């Protein structure tokens, strides 16, 4: 049988199409049901944010209330190390001048020296993520800047990059410095960097962050910044808020009510 050039081209075209189709069919055949999922009750958001009303904190807490700090540190097995240079902190207080060094002129003397609650700002443009060579620090889609301790090699680039000092390095084995270990959450080991994770493990189980839940006076409000009806947006609409070091362009997602 003689085969014309036209038939030959048609047939080889079909053959090529078939070859191209094979991997597609392969992939489709392999996509079985999703084997992992989010828990049904998990809290989700487009961009998580926290608003801290320091006035409520000072007026009600009288400067000695440490509920949020204790709740956070207990929940996440943060060690209590006496040696100052080796301390590990997820949430702590800083005097106004240290927390907001370039903004003194805005508020005046009223806030001078007052303690401000500070933690990882979960920046929208986090410098720590940019510098991490192993991608141990990464930003999730919902805005949480996460640490994957399995990948951390302890190079501390992130600590150098973070303009807020929100990261701690484990110089020693933290276990002996944890009073009562919370078995539901891992501890860390010597040689990794750690920081606040916005309680992503609690969000996944449907509860708000430990600090916000522990505050008796409602000074810490947690919510979705992209949701116009959320409590954080309501506060941002009605109150005067500031963020830490806005001049650096990291766009923090922690807001402070100061007026």
């Amino acid at each position, binding site marked *: 049988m003689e085969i014309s050039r036209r038939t030959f081209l048609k047939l080889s075209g079909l053959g090529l199409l078939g070859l191209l189709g094979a991997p597609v069919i392969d992939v489709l055949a392999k996509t079985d*049901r*999703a*084997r*992992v*999922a*989010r*828990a049904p009750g*998990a809290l989700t958001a487009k961009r998580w944010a926290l608003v801290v009303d320091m006035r409520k904190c000072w007026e009600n807490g009288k400067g000695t209330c440490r509920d949020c700090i204790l709740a956070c540190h207990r929940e996440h*097995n943060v060690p209590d190390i006496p040696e100052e240079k080796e301390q590990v902190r997820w949430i702590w207080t800083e005097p106004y001048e240290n927390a907001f060094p370039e903004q003194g002129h805005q508020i005046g003397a009223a806030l001078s020296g007052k303690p401000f609650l500070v933690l990882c700002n979960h920046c929208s443009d986090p410098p720590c993520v940019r510098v991490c060579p192993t991608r141990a620090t*990464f930003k*999730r889609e*919902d805005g949480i800047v*996460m640490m*994957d*301790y*399995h990948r951390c090699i302890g190079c501390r680039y992130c600590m150098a990059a973070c303009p807020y000092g929100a990261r701690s390095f484990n110089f020693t084995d933290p276990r002996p410095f944890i009073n009562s*270990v*919370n*078995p*539901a*959450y*891992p*501890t*860390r*080991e010597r040689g990794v960097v750690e920081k606040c994770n916005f309680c*992503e493990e609690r969000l*996944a189980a449907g509860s708000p962050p430990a600090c916000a839940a522990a505050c008796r006076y409602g000074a810490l409000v947690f919510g979705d910044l992209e949701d116009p009806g959320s409590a954080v947006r309501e506060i941002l609409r009605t109150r005067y808020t500031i963020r830490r070091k806005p001049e650096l362009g990291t766009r923090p997602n922690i807001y402070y009510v100061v007026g």
Partner: protein
Amino acid sequence: MYDSGKILAGLAIFAMLITFPVWYHLGKATPPPEPDLDTPAIAQLAQKECVEPTDYMRASHMELLKQWRDWVVRDGKRIYVGQDGKQYVMSLEDTCLKCHSNKARFCDQCHNYVRVQPNCWNCHVVPEEGGR
């Protein structure tokens, strides 16, 4: 040939020393470990099954744990759907160790036998050794 006696004797001693581990353990094979499944949680299970079939878990639990780790930490997904369609929370402490609470007799036995030292326990907390 000078000192051939001394050289040969020395060689013989050397050969004996270097093969010492082989003949010392000759015929004394270390029995393979038998992981202990006797814990209260497992005893209560109607069907004694892990999140995946035993053969798969025996050969590939480390692969599975590594995948779990990435799904939980990096993708934020915590529910695992096993081959049987059942759902499990992906957690070393809350899922694996709740059943296998006898770490020493379940995990360590095999890990010691094959001389692997997983560093999971540097961070993950071993619950109070329960079992039996």
